[in-house]
């Protein structure tokens, strides 16, 4: 097939396809923006001096301190996770219609490879549009936001540019990755000329994701012992080892939680089926067992955001415990304590934004599920099934797996952090205290007379479990789920109409 023909076929489609392309492009734009922002932060050059030399041209301490910048960049990169999750959900939007179109292409003589290429090209082109738009917004935004204050300092790192190669990697790499993922997803789809048959998994999901979660937790817990092991041998651990522990560990835990949702869906579905008395619960139970992975797909971004949020709550609890420790044994970070807590507020804000984006993805998934089944729903309504029953079944179907999955995500996120940070402890050492005034103590001759040695008792402050914080995240997650189901019900009202049943 000639590239022009391929392009024409990739761009042929209905309004739903248009919506999918637009949403894919939008999420690519958002991902590009956060990616480029992260690269910009990383591009800030550390001024010469010791490891703590600050880049004084910025007003914001998060940008000034070299030790904090990687964290900021990491948080920005983390934002890409729910955004990419949203892109994944968008790919499912109008998928049945697209599948029919692809099947028609197969019927007209296209090979399976060509059909896959057409679908991949559609996603890739949409993403490329999005990344280019993101690049444009980034470049314009940089110019507009470059406003040095009266003291010549900047609020944002608008004075540095990320390396062109890195920018190109984002702008070109994201669409390529999206196209690859889309081709990969279509691998499970046998595109026959007679419609697309998704190979149903007959097997119930195994609880293997539990193992992944344990591996992730173990890697985080190993972080300190590994460091100490090298310290005792007066050796430096390999540069990649400790970051690798954290990155691989968090990925393992995240994949474990998301995949574990499949198992949770299936199990709650089975339990619900056994104990369901009302048709709403029965419908939900059967749907959960019929496609347990739907839960994983829909909740993936939300759960990732929640793991991150619970981790942040854990770190904040650790800060608070450290502050408490310093209060008890003296010393401490002083003014910077407040700064760290403000930084944590920023992280919480990031999590909230991520959850909002994830809720967008959830909404797309719920609406897609309803529109795909609107004929069956319309038939149910016609035979006298109240819409409320269908609504309740949707609620059951979303909440039954969501509640345990959200709990799991929060627990895992919190435990990961607790694995790295032991309870802050201090003391257990002698301390010289000079009881006289500054003048006497300052003089080495007189100082000795006024000095006594006191044993600072060893104090350990176990950080409180940040119940309140975690509860807020749980409430936020549940609210996102409830909200999307609510909006979904509006679509149900519009979708389950008798027009779906007309045969003439």
């Amino acid at each position, binding site marked *: 097939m000639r590239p022009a023909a391929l392009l024409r076929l990739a761009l042929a489609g209905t309004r739903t396809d248009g919506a999918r392309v637009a949403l894919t492009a939008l999420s690519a734009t958002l991902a590009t923006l956060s990616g480029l922002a992260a690269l910009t932060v990383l591009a800030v050059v550390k001024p010469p001096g010791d490891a703590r030399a600050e880049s004084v041209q910025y007003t914001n301490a998060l940008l000034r301190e070299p030790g904090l910048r990687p964290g900021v960049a990491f948080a920005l990169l983390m934002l890409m996770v729910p955004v990419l999750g949203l892109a994944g959900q968008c790919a499912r939007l109008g998928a049945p219609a697209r599948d029919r179109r692809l099947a028609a292409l197969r019927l007209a003589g296209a090979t399976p490879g060509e059909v896959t290429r057409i679908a991949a090209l559609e996603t890739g082109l949409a993403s490329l549009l999005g990344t280019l738009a993101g690049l444009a917004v980034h470049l314009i935004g940089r110019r507009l936001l470059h406003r040095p204050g009266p003291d010549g300092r900047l609020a944002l790192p608008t004075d540095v540019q990320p390396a062109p190669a890195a920018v190109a990697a984002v702008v070109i790499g994201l669409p390529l990755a999206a196209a690859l993922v889309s081709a990969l997803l279509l691998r499970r789809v046998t595109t026959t000329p007679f419609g697309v048959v998704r190979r149903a998994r007959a097997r119930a999901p195994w609880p293997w994701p539990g193992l992944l979660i344990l591996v992730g937790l173990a890697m985080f817990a190993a972080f300190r012992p590994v460091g100490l092991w090298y310290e005792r041998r007066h050796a430096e651990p390999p540069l990649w080892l400790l970051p690798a522990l954290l990155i691989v560990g968090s990925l393992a835990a995240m994949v474990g939680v998301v995949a574990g949702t499949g198992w949770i869906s299936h199990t709650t579905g089975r339990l619900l089926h056994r104990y369901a008395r009302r048709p709403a619960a*029965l419908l939900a139970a059967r749907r959960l067992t019929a496609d347990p992975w739907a839960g994983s797909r829909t909740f993936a971004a939300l759960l990732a955001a929640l793991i991150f949020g619970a981790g942040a709550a854990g770190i904040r609890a650790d800060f608070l415990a450290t502050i408490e420790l310093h209060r008890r044994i003296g010393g401490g970070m002083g003014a910077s304590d407040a700064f760290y807590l403000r930084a944590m507020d920023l992280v919480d804000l990031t999590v909230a934004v991520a959850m909002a984006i994830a809720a967008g993805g959830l909404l797309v998934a719920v609406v897609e599920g309803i529109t795909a089944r609107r004929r069956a729903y319309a*038939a149910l309504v016609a035979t*006298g099934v*109240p819409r409320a029953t269908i609504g309740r079944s949707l609620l059951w179907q979303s909440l039954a797996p969501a509640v345990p999955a959200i709990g799991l995500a929060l627990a895992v996120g919190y435990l990961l952090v607790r694995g790295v940070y032991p309870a802050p402890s201090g003391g257990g050492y002698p301390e010289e205290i000079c009881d006289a005034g500054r003048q006497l103590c300052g003089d080495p001759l007189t100082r000795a007379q006024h000095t006594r040695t006191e044993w600072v008792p060893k104090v350990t402050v176990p950080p409180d479990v940040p119940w309140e914080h975690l509860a807020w995240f749980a409430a936020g997650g549940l609210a996102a789920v409830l909200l999307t189901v609510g909006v979904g019900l509006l679509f149900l009202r519009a979708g389950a109409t*008798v027009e779906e*049943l007309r*045969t003439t």
Partner: protein
Amino acid sequence: MTYLQARGVVRAYGRTPALRGVTLDVAEGEIVAVTGPSGCGRSTLLHCLAGILRPDAGQVTWRGERIDGWSEAARSRLRRTEFGVLFQFGQLVAELTAAENVALPLLLAGTGRREARTAALTWLERLGVAEVADVRPGEMSGGQQQRCATARALVTEPRVLFADEPTGALDTLAGEQVLTHLVRLARDQHTTVVLVTHEPRVAGYADREVMLRDGVVDHSGLGLDASLPGGHR
């Protein structure tokens, strides 16, 4: 007292009129075929009679009561208890097994699960598809699906069964099997049937045929067939 009756029923989709004043009487226990060319308003008439759609004008009465003014909830209840509805395809819930699909209306009525399943199995047996009781619709043939749907429409023992092209998606033999079962059971239970179809062969299962043309009953002599003199029943 009239049984099921439409008086001057008018209904439009947007600006396209589907029914322009249909008057029709259905007697208790009879099987009426509603036929006519494509776009004549057959399905719309069935939806209005079954209380799925509200007519824009005119009346629909059921055992002397006007149902066209009833609320959606009241009409839903009526469809769930007194009426049964059967469509061309795609009406079974894909995730539920055949028995669960058939039991659904009973569960909605508050019947216990065990009891509902027993009743569902009985009806699947009556329609000759007991062997697919624990199979999901996706793994059944079209004819089996349609027989399950028929069982679901009849499980509540409705007074009227509305069937909209019930064999439209089936091959001849599967369609005949569905219709044969449907007609036999309807006669046994003394159920009234309103059967929408465009096929003379399917209309042959009815006692009487009403032909629609351009949204009205065709009285040209072609549409109105008296029931057979001394015929069946």
